[in-house]
C-alpha cells in the first residue's frame, strides 16, 4: 500500500490502476459474493479527478482503492446494511469516514456484503436476497461477520486496498481472524459514526480491514478525529500512529487468563502463544492477568446492543425510503406486514429480544442492570492497564466453520462466537486482530491508546 500510494503521489497512472482494480474486483466477486454493488463508472470518474488534482496536491491516500461495509452511507450509492427492507435506498450524504477517505484521495470501489444490520458473527446471516460471501482460501468456509465481505475481499484482492468495516461486538475482528487479515476497531468515539446505519449506538465503531498493521495505522490516521455532526465523537487529538509502529521493545503484554480457558480451540491457543513468544523475543514482556467479570460479557453485550438496536431499527418500516407496499390497512398493520416480509430471521429475533429487554417492568432487570455491569467491566480493564500496555487473547474461539455446519448452530452457539470480542467492544477499548498462524490474535489497549496496538507490529 505504501509503495502504491507513493507511486500515485508521484505521477502514477491512477486511472489505469483503478480500471484494472475494478476489473479484478468484478472477477473475484462473480464466485465469492463480496460486494452488494461495484460502482465502476463512479470509481473511474473519481480516479480521473484525483489524477488531475494529484499534480498539485499531495493526497495521503492518493488513488488507493477502498471498499465500504454496506451499512455505511455513501452518497447516491445503494446502502442497505444487506437488508431487503432497505432495497433501493440511496443516501443523500456520505458518512464522515467515507468523506475523509475521499478527501484523502482514496477511490471508492463498492459496498461489501454484511450480516443483516450487523447481526451475525459468522457471515452467513445476510438479509433476504443477499448471498453469503465465500472464504478466500476455502469456499466452503465462513468469512466471519458481520463485516464479512470486507474481510474476504481484503484477503482475496492482491493489490493495495483497504476496507471500512464496523464493529459493535466483534464485527471487524471476526472476519479479520477468519480471513487472515488485520481488523482494527478503534476506541469508541475515535471515528465519527455520522452516516453509519446504527446497530448498537453506544457500541458501534467504524474501523479498517487491511492486509497489514501499518496499513491499518495509515487508514486510521485519515478517518480518526472529531466531527461536529456526531456529538459523541471525541475531541482528543489524533497522534501520529506511524511513529509507534514496531516499537516492541519494552512493550508490556498481559494475556487474559479467561480467554485461554476451555471452549477455545487448542490450535488457536497454540498459534496465539507462538505469536506471543515471537514478540517476547523482540523485546516485549508477557505475563498473565485475570479478568473475571468478562464472563458476564456476552449477556451484558447482547442486552445493551439489542435494546439499542430495537430502537434503531424502528425507522425501517416501509415508509419514506427502502421497500414499501400498498397501504390498505392501519399504520400498525402496515408496518408489521413490511417488517415481517422484508426482515430476516436473525434481525427479527434480535429486535424482539431488544424490545422485551427495555419494556417497563423488565428494564431494570435487563437494560439498566447491563449498563451497571458494563461499568464494572470497564473498571476491571482500567485496573489491568495499570500494569500493562496491551492485553492479549485469541480473537475467535473457533476456526472458520463450514457454512453448511454453521447454519446448524443454535442461536446461542452463534452468539457465543463473540465471547472473546465483546469485552473490549463493551468497554469501548481499541483493539486489533492480527493473523497468527491460521487464527487471529487480538491486542487490546486502553482508551485512545491505539498507538500501543501499533507497537505490536513485527517487521
Amino acid at each position, binding site marked *: 500500500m505504501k509503495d502504491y500510494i507513493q507511486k500515485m503521489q508521484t505521477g502514477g497512472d491512477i486511472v489505469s490502476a483503478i480500471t484494472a482494480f475494478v476489473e479484478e474486483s468484478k472477477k473475484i466477486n462473480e464466485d465469492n459474493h463480496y460486494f452488494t454493488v461495484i460502482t465502476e463508472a463512479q470509481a473511474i470518474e473519481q480516479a480521473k479527478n484525483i489524477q488531475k488534482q494529484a499534480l498539485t496536491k499531495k493526497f495521503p491516500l492518493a488513488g488507493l482503492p477502498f471498499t465500504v461495509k454496506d451499512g455505511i*452511507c455513501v452518497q447516491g450509492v445503494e446502502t442497505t446494511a444487506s437488508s431487503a427492507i*432497505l432495497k433501493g435506498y440511496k443516501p443523500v*450524504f456520505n458518512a464522515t469516514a467515507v468523506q475523509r477517505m475521499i478527501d484523502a484521495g482514496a477511490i471508492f470501489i463498492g459496498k461489501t456484503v454484511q450480516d443483516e444490520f450487523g447481526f451475525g458473527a459468522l457471515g452467513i446471516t445476510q438479509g433476504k436476497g443477499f448471498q453469503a460471501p465465500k472464504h478466500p482460501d476455502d469456499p466452503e468456509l465462513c468469512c466471519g461477520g458481520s463485516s464479512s465481505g470486507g474481510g474476504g475481499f481484503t484477503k482475496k484482492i492482491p493489490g493495495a486496498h483497504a476496507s471500512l468495516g464496523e464493529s459493535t461486538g466483534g464485527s471487524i475482528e471476526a472476519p479479520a481472524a477468519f480471513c487472515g487479515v488485520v481488523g482494527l476497531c478503534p476506541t469508541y468515539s475515535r471515528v465519527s459514526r*455520522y452516516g453509519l*446505519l*446504527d446497530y448498537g449506538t453506544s457500541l458501534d465503531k467504524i474501523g479498517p480491514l487491511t492486509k497489514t498493521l501499518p496499513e491499518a495505522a495509515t487508514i486510521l490516521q485519515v478517518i480518526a478525529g472529531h466531527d461536529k455532526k456526531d*456529538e*459523541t465523537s471525541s475531541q482528543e487529538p489524533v497522534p501520529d500512529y506511524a511513529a509507534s509502529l514496531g516499537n516492541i521493545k519494552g512493550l508490556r503484554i498481559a494475556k487474559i487468563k479467561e480467554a485461554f480457558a476451555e471452549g477455545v480451540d487448542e490450535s488457536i491457543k497454540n498459534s496465539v502463544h507462538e505469536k506471543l513468544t515471537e514478540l517476547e523475543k523482540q523485546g516485549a514482556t508477557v505475563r498473565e492477568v485475570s479478568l473475571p467479570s468478562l464472563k458476564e460479557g456476552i449477556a451484558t453485550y447482547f442486552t445493551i446492543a439489542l435494546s439499542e438496536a430495537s430502537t434503531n431499527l424502528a*425507522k425501517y418500516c416501509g415508509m419514506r425510503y427502502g421497500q414499501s407496499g400498498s397501504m390498505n390497512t392501519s399504520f400498525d398493520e402496515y408496518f408489521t406486514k413490511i417488517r415481517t416480509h422484508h426482515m430476516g430471521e436473525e434481525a427479527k429475533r434480535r429486535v424482539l429480544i431488544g424490545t422485551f429487554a427495555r419494556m*417497563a417492568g423488565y428494564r431494570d432487570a435487563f437494560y439498566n442492570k447491563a449498563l451497571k455491569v458494563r461499568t464494572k467491566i470497564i473498571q476491571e480493564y482500567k485496573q489491568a492497564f495499570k500494569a500493562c500496555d496491551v492485553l492479549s487473547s485469541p480473537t475467535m474461539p473457533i476456526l472458520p466453520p463450514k457454512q453448511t455446519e454453521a447454519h446448524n448452530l443454535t442461536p446461542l452457539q452463534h452468539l457465543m462466537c463473540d465471547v472473546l470480542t465483546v469485552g473490549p467492544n463493551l468497554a469501548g477499548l481499541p483493539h486489533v486482530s492480527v493473523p497468527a498462524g491460521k487464527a487471529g490474535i487480538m491486542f487490546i489497549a486502553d482508551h485512545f491508546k491505539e498507538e500501543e496496538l501499533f507497537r505490536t507490529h513485527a517487521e
Partner: protein
Amino acid sequence: MQSDMIIGMEVHIQLNTNTKLFCGCKIENAQPNTRTCPVCLGHPGSRPTLNKRAIEYATKMALALQSTIASQLVFSRKTYFYPDMGKNYQITQYETPLAENGTVVLSDGTKVRIKRLHVEEDPAGMVHEEGLSLVDYNRSGIPLIEVVTEPDMISPEQAREFMKKLQSILAYLDIFASDGIIKADVNVSVKSSGFERVEVKNVTGFKEIERCVEYEVKRQQTDTVVKETRAWNAELGRTRSLRLKESEEDYGYITDPDLVVRPIEPAFVESIQKTLPELPEEKTARFVKEHKLDAIDARIIAAEPDVAALYEESSKQVSPVLAARWVRRELLRSLNTQGKKLKDTPLRAHHVIPLFKLIENKQITDRVGQKLIRELAEEPFDVAERVQKEGLTAVSDTGEIGTAVDETLSENPQALQDFKQGEAKAFEFLMGQIMRKTKGKALPDVVRKLLEEKIK
C-alpha cells in the same frame, strides 16, 4: 374539605428558537416539507446535535416556575410507530427531566405544583383526509417544553388562571412565539365518579384548553364516567372517547446514546437566573406595595409585559393610581373591545401620558378622556393637538354652563316635574342631557352645582 373535581395538565409549549432542537433547519412558515434535512427526517445514519439555545430557554422557564434544575442533561428515546416520527422514536426526557418541583401560585393562594418540566422534539404535523394522510416534517424536531402539573386545580376557573399565568410568564421570558404551538393533555376527575381519571389528549391553543376543561367538567358531572383517554373536537366543542385506559402504554424508554450526557453546571443555572426579568408575581407585589395600587388592577396590569411597561412609564409622570385606573379600566377595555393586544398595536406610553396629564389636571373631562383613549386604541395620534383642534378642553365657565342648564330645563319640563315630585333619577337624567349638550366637555362638578342651585 374534599373538592368537587381535580384538574391536572401536561402543557406542551413551542420555544421560539431560530432553528430546530437537533438540527440547523429554520423554524418558519413555509411550504410543507421544505424546512427539513436528513436529521429531522430521520434518515439512516444521521444524528442529532443539540441546540443549546433551546436548553437556555427551557431553563429560563424552569427557573421562572421556581423548579429545581437537574444536575445532568439526559435525553431518552420514546419508541412508537407512527408516520409523524421519522425515526419512529421521539427524543424526549424521561428518567431525568430538566427540572422538577416547581410552583405556580394562583390569585386565591392555591399552589399548583409543577411535577416536572422537560425538553423534547415535536413530531411532524399530520393532516388526515379521506383515504389520505399527509405529513409535514417542517414541524418535526421543533423544540418543545412540557410542563406537567400535579392535579392541584379544583375548578375550571383555576385551570384558566393557571393557563393565563403560564402565558404571562412566557411573554415576560420572550421564549414563546404567539403563533407557536401550545397544546395540552388535560386530566379531569370529578367527585361524583369517585375521581375516575380521564385524560383529554392534544388540545391545541389557550382558548381551546379553557373550553375543553369547562366542557369536560360539565360532561363528567352529568354523564357516566369511565377511565379513558378522550380527544377534543374544537369544531363541535366536545370530547369523544379515544380508548379505554387499561394500562399505560409502554414506550420502552432508553437513554439516547447519540446525545452526550452533559453536566448542568451551577454557573450555567446562575447565568440564566441573572437574565430573568421581574416576573408578573413580583411586579404585582411591587405595584401594590410601592404604588399603592388595588391588587386586582396591579395583577391585570402586570400580566402583560407591554401593558406593565406602558403603565410604569406613565406612573412616573402622573399619579400611579390614576395611571393604573386608566390603563386597566379604559385602555385595556378599549383594546379588548377592538379584539387587540397592546403588543400588536403601535400604541406606546408617549401617546397616553399627555392624555393622563390632561385628565389629572382636569383640563379634559373623564368623558372626553374615554373617547380619546378609544380612538388611541384604534390608531395613535398626538393628543394635545387633537384636543386643541376639536376644542375638547374642559369647560368650567359658569356662564357657558349656566346657559346649557337653562336650555336643558326648558327642553325637558317633564323631567323637571318628575324631580320636583321626588324622583332622584330625573336629576341624573338632566345631568346627562347637559353633558351631552356640552359634548362632554363641561366639568361634571360645575354642572352638578349649577343644576342644584337652579332646581332645588
